[in-house]
């Protein structure tokens, strides 16, 4: 390559050590803002889109942000619950379609359950809902079917990939209190379907009927007959006062809802009092939306929130913090630019004899300027490329590793 660019490239290559140091300095300064901006942009798009895709959310009064983020992203259980009758009240008022959400439990693949239990390895949230949820989010089964029966589950695409699950495999709920003898038994859940990926948090969750999650809560249960069991260690030699054979605790390590025992599963008490994390309301019309919001506006125990508005508030806070960060970054950039200017000035001084030679040989006056300018341009361009590549890679890593807040709706 000829011209001042060619000479600048040769100079950079010849002084490769100095060039690498300058490249590293510039890259480090550039990589942070590029990465943060990419992540924030993705974060904002994802949050706003998922918020907009969730018209209204009913939940117990408490933290608005907490309720919305936990209901939309299944991160952990929201401590304040509503009950089924709260959702029923919305339904009965005719405001629109009501979709229950029960987000409390987590599941592991059954094959590794023993190992996972001891090592506390990866798990996925179990979301109790109904079929309307799949319609709302545009989710369909890529393999198998949606969970139509009590005890069935469908897994998100990323969960299926992470755990190597397919229809016919099993999941097991993560035990909450390992040493509590009064705890509910873990539920072994068959996978009946795998959802097609939609690039959202739904890919990283497991869905079951809300009644299934109530069974995991211990509210519902079934009864197995133990009198046909051959293993003597599973059956107590004692019988109860009615002369009924009693099983040892060893028998029921896991409960499983099968087609054979499904009819035996039942709930004690009125389901209207059963817990939910929240409920999504898809209003029939704008009028219904307005009326519903007005009615719940003054409710002392319940929120009826617009998730998109809450997320806008969150983003406002995030961008306020970002402004401080940007100010700090500006100072770092100015100091780096001054440092670069110093390096260039010193470099120009060191290269004085070279520039004088070029002058003697009759190079145009602009040659010296362009020799130095091209070096800066080349270094800045390479740094920007490396920083962008690093930023995109980090962005991709964060997304692919399933930080659900960053997923788009």
């Amino acid at each position, binding site marked *: 390559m*000829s*011209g*001042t660019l*060619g*000479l600048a490239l*040769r*100079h950079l*290559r*010849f*002084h490769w050590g100095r060039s690498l140091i300058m490249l590293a300095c510039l890259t480090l300064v550039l990589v942070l803002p590029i990465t943060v901006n990419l992540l924030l942009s993705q974060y904002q798009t994802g949050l706003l889109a998922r918020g907009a895709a969730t018209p209204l959310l009913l939940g117990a009064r408490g933290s608005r942000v907490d309720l919305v983020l936990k209901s939309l992203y299944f991160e952990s259980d929201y401590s304040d619950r509503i009950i089924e009758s709260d959702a029923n009240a919305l339904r009965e008022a005719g405001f629109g379609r009501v979709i229950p959400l029960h987000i409390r439990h987590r599941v592991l693949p059954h094959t590794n359950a023993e190992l996972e239990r001891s090592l506390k390895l990866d798990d996925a949230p179990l979301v109790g809902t109904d079929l309307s949820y799949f319609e709302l989010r545009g989710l369909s089964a890529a393999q198998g079917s949606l969970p139509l029966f009590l005890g069935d589950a469908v897994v998100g695409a990323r969960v299926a990939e992470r755990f190597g699950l397919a229809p016919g495999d099993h999941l097991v709920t993560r035990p909450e209190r390992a040493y509590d003898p009064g705890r509910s038994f873990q539920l072994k859940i068959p996978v009946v379907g795998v959802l097609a990926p939609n690039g959202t948090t739904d890919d990283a969750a497991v869905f079951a009927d809300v009644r299934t999650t109530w069974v995991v809560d211990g509210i519902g249960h079934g009864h197995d007959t133990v009198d046909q069991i051959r293993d003597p260690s599973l059956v107590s030699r004692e019988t109860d006062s009615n002369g009924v054979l009693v099983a040892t605790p060893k028998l029921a390590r896991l409960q499983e809802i099968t087609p054979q025992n499904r009819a035996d599963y039942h709930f004690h008490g009125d389901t209207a009092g059963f817990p939910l994390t929240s409920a999504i309301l898809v209003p029939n019309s704008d009028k219904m939306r307005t009326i519903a919001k007005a009615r719940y506006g003054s409710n002392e125990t319940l929120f009826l929130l617009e998730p998109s508005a809450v997320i806008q508030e969150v983003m406002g806070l995030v961008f306020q913090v970002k402004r401080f960060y940007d100010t700090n970054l500006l100072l770092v950039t100015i100091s780096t630019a001054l440092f670069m200017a110093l390096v260039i000035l010193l470099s120009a001084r060191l290269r004085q*004899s*070279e520039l004088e*030679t*070029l*002058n*003697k*040989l*009759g*190079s*145009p*006056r602009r*040659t010296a300027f362009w020799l130095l300018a091209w070096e800066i341009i080349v270094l800045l361009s390479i740094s920007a490329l490396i920083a962008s590549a690093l930023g995109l890679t980090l962005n991709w890593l964060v997304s692919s590793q399933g930080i659900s807040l960053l997923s788009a709706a």
Partner: protein
Amino acid sequence: MDPNLQSPRLERRILIKMRDVEFSYPGEDFRLGVRALSFAEAARVALIGPSGCGKTTLAFLMAGLLRPGAGQVWALGQALHGATDAELRSFRRNRVGFVFQQFELLDYLSAEDNILLSDHLEGHVSRARRDQARKLAERVGVGHRLRHRPATLSQGERQRVAICRALLHEPQLLIADEPTGNLDPDTSELIMDLLHEQVGRLGCTFVMVTHDHALLERFDHCLDCRALSSEHSV
């Protein structure tokens, strides 16, 4: 260049002409005065004299590296005293070959790229020019060192590369400022042989600044810079 500055009376065979030239460096006592001086085409002139008498300054005035404070300098038909900075640069780049005492090679370029430096600065190095550079390097005995950088060349090889750079454009005027000042006697002789051979081949005017009286016998004229106040015609 202003056409009025062209000399209609410039004799065809006179390549360099100076009249009533005065030059001084700002803030220094040094003052160079040239009453009348003319060098003919293909002349070989040695500029001699003690240090500080103005040999290099005179050479730089002829090469368009300095502009006189007063008087007129004509070189290769061009009025250097009235030329713009860009015109002087173009003059140096295209019409004059200059060999420096310190070689002045760029350490990050190969010998070949140093020879082709002017073309690099123009933004284009043609294949023909590259071939020409290689042939010239072969001729002066550094053809096998073209890929090497100056730091890996001997002093003599560096000066040969510098000579190739000065001669590549086949200049009508070759100026050498103490080209053997940093060389041992044997290498000096080799370099002088080479310079005279190439000057003879190209038929250009050759002006050399030197302290070394042993080198003078091969020049047509020796001009003592202490005597510039009188008229000189070479």
